[in-house]
Every structure is written in C-alpha cells, then in structure tokens.
C-alpha cells in the first residue's frame, strides 16, 4: 500500500533528473515567494533580469517552454506590468453563458467546490477515467511543453498526461463534419513572421472546458495565438467560441512562456485511475469528509 502511495506521489510531482542545476546562473526567488524545486535546465524570468532581450527569430516557436513567472502552479505572473494568468480566467463582465451553458455549468461538481468523493469531474486527476481533452489541457496544470516544427505540421508535447497534439500547416482546412474527438482537429498558419494562429474544431463536447467546470459542446471552436515576442518568450492567448454554451467568444487564457535550456527534461506527469482511486479511498476521501465535518 505504501508503495502505491509513493508511486502516486512520484507520478504527480516533478522529477529531479540527471545532472544538478547550474546554480551560478539562477536568480534567487523574491523573499516570501513560495519556491518549488528547480528542474535542471529550468529558466524563469527572474534569471534574465537586467539582460537585454534578444531578437525574436522569424517563424520559430520550437523549443522547450516553461512558465515565465516561475515554476509550479499557477503559471502566471506580471509581464510588462500586466497580470497574465493561468486558466480559469473570466472576462471582466463574467463568463457569457447561454441558458444551456449555465445549466450545464451548474451540474458540474468540481473538486474545488465539493469533497473528492462527491465530484463528478470526469478526469483521472479527480478520480475519473476520462482524458482532459482539449482545450482543458491548456487550462489545467499547463506546465512545461515542447514545440516541434516540421515542414508539414507543428507538434506540441504536453507534460500533463504525456499528451501530444499535431497542428497541420500543410494547407488543409478544418473538417466540416468531423468525427468528434477528445483532442480536436487543428490547423495553423503564420499571420506574420512572429505570430502563429491555430484553429481547432471537431471536439466531442464530453470533457469539461476547465477546472471550475465551465462546459463545452461539439460546437466549440478554439483559437490560439502564439506570439514570439523576443528570443526567450512566447505570449500565448486562447479564445473560446462555443455558441451553444456562450453568447460570445471569450478569452480563457493569456500566458507568457519562457524558453528553457535544451537539456530541460519534461518530468512524467501521468495519471493512473487505479492508483488515484486507492489514494482517494484511503487519504483524500476520508480527509475531505473529516474537513467537511469540522465546518
């Protein structure tokens, strides 16, 4: 039993791999900031303080990318004086639900609102067996990622769930009547030398949009913009457009990514439903009930 919990802890935490970090190049975190173990090859914005940004390369997003503000979660911070954040953002005037959207949202019992034993969040990390799907993979625990560019596509490798996505750049159009999928059909193009825009459709509507349980339907269309702002940064913006669930498009995420060292190794962050169930049964559920009883 203890080995299973240890295994669960291991697969849920970042891994120290291979060589030790080069401490001389790292800036200390601000006093009072919660720190997380620095991964070998990790680079944060504070490491580049005082240095002149290098020029953005043209039509190039390739590399390993981390959260510019620092390690761990949330992956947000202040960029050029503006707060950029993790997913779960809401427009200033609130999420523009349709009646169906609001009804569906209210039927979702997130682990932020109820104890683990009472949630109906379908993903493994909440005790279910379903994948996160797209775009929740951007809105929930987006940590490090690798972007690869080939002549016919851009491939993104995500840490959470060891998931890959392929964005086609070979001129094909989005399908008109696609077979619904968890991860969608994605096409992308450069709108200028530094801005890559991705459009995605063909989503099944089964997964939740994000952790608070915002809904999505099979009418969802997602637009991502990856703007290479300098040699070390991408500004990533994600817009949600789902006319069944929302009355208008809204921005779900804006995040600054920073280029990591080439040797940065994405730690494995897999979820096993059977191990999670054991953990919830013996730790999370009793703990949640106890916490509830104390309220």
């Amino acid at each position, binding site marked *: *039993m203890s080995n*299973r919990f240890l*295994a669960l802890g*291991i*697969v849920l935490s970042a*891994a*120290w*791999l*291979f*060589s030790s970090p080069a401490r001389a190049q790292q800036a200390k975190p601000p006093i009072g900031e919660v720190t997380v173990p620095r991964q070998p090859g990790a680079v944060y914005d504070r490491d580049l303080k005082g240095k002149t940004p290098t020029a953005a390369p043209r039509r190039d997003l390739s590399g390993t990318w981390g959260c510019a503000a620092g390690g761990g979660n949330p992956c947000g911070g202040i960029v050029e004086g503006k707060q950029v954040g993790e997913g779960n953002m809401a427009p200033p005037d609130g999420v523009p639900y349709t009646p169906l959207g609001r009804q569906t949202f209210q039927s979702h019992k997130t682990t932020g609102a109820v104890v683990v034993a009472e949630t109906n969040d*379908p993903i*493994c990390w909440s*005790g*279910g*067996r*379903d*994948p996160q799907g797209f775009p929740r993979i951007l809105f929930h625990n987006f940590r490090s990622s*690798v972007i*690869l560019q*080939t*002549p*016919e596509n851009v*491939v993104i*490798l995500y840490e959470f769930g*060891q*998931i*890959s*996505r*392929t964005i*086609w750049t*070979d*001129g*094909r159009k989005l*399908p008109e009547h*696609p077979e619904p*999928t*968890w*991860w969608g*059909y994605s096409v992308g193009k450069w709108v200028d030398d530094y801005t890559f825009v991705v459009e995605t459709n063909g989503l099944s509507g*089964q997964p939740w949009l994000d952790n608070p349980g915002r809904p999505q339907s099979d009418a969802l269309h997602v637009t991502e913009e990856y703007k290479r702002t300098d040699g070390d940064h991408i500004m990533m913006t994600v817009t949600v457009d789902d006319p069944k669930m929302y009355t208008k498009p809204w921005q779900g995420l804006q995040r600054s990514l920073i280029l990591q060292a*080439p*040797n940065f*190794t*994405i*730690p*494995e962050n*897999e*979820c*096993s*439903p*059977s*191990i999670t*169930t*054991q953990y*919830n*049964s013996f730790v999370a559920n009793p703990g949640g009930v106890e916490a509830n009883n104390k309220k």
Partner: protein
Amino acid sequence: MSNRFLALGIVLIAAGMFSAPARARQGGAQSWQPTPVYDKKGENSAPAPTRDISGVWVPAQGAQAGIQANGAAAMPSDGKPEHELPYTPLGRQTLQQHKPVGGVTKVSARLSNDPVPGCDPQGFPRVVLDNFRASRIIQTPDRVVILYDENNKWRMIWMDGRKLPDLKDNPEPAFWGYSVGKWTDDHTFVVESNGFDETSWLDHAGRPHSDALHVTEEYKRTDQDHLVLTVTIDDPKMYTKPWVALKLPLRLQAPGFTLEERQCSMAEYNKFEGTAVPRTNRPAAPPPAQQ
C-alpha cells in the same frame, strides 16, 4: 474529331498510369481520413537514406500485423513450447496474478484485472507490444520524439550525451521510462530504456515486468520505404535471460498522414464493449484493509 477524342483518351489514360503509383505512395496525403499504404508484391524501393527514421510508420504487412491480442508478436502466449518465456519463479508468480483477456491465461473481460481497459497508462513497451497501428517519428539534433496514436502519447529519446539513470539511485519510476539513443551505423538507431513503473503490464497477455526492466529497441532503415523495429526485453527479476518480443517491418506513409485518435475513456470503452461489461467512470474503490 475522332483523332481529338483519341488524343484526349490517350492523355487521360497516360495520366492515370503515371499518377496512380504516386497516389498509392501518397496514400491520402493532407487527409483527415488517411488511407494507409501497405506492402505490395513486386514493389521496389529506393535505397535507405542516411541516419533518417523520421516519418509516419505503420505495419508493412497490414494493420493485423501490429495487433498483438495474444501478447508480444515474436513470443505470443499460445501454449507452443517455442513461445514459452524464460520466467523466474517471481515472473511466473506475477504472471499468475494477472488476469488478461488475451493469451493462454485469458479470462472473460468481466473477470480481468488488466489495468489498461480502465484507462491506466499503457506505458512503454506495451504501447508497441499491444496494438501498434501508426506512429510518427520526429528527429531533431539532440533527440528523437516518437508519437503514438493510442491515447496521443509521446516518448522522448535523448541523444545529447546523457546516460540512463542508474537504478541504484532510485530514479522516479515512469510509465514511459527514460530513453537514450544513438546511431550504431548510418541506418541503425538503437534505443535503451529503463526506470519503469512496475504497475504496468508488458503486453496484452499479462506478461509481467519489474522496475528492473531494460528495453532495447533497434530501428533499422532497410530502404526508403521500410523500417524494421526490434524490441528486446531484459528483466532479471522476471526472466532468466533477455528475449525478443517484437520484430516488426514498418512502412513509410505520406507526410500528411494523420494519426487517428484512439482514446481511452469510459464512454469509448462502453461503446466498444457494448453493454456486456458496462463500467462507470469511477473505478471501484479497493476493499478496506483487514484489521
């Protein structure tokens, strides 16, 4: 006028003759519904490129060649003496604890304890020893990345000079392991992997592996259109000697070949299995510990 129709007919026929092979080789490029290209008798291929295994690869003889319902294709669990694996006592004991739905020890789906139908990660090497359909290999100067269609998973094989972790240092167990690779000649890429999470199975027939598992893959580019993947299992806790689990010829597909989504979820599982063994999205909790 008849000469014009004849000329047009000749042009159209010629166009069909000369473009058909190109279409066959493209096999549905730029299509969301790709048509795989498999080996045909009498075909010739161009020579193998140097140090290049990139592209989308499917089993050369057809999809059936990658479907290993009775376990690793080179050593299926079929009761034949030549396919009996060299189990240690622990290996045999662990095998008997597994209740697979394939191989000679198979049980019905309702009685199986195979973790994969419940959407536990397949992990490596099971992803290539279970239902190998299509995968994409991408090469960069310091790594090789392999994408698998089953559950959209990826593996990273490092070529930056790092060594595999020493198991004595207790590396974090990983479903997908730690992998390093190198070219042993201009057409052969060899990958070594270790550091595996022992909770996964080796294949669909429930063969076991431990945290001592070491996997060697050889990717041999034999010509322009072909790659032969050989997988060797070495796990001294479970097997008395290494054994070859797979030797699978693969066929190159068009660059625009789209990997089909094959995603584990309870909705998908119940749709596939029908109502025979309906499962909820919540795995059953284990029984309380005995006091």
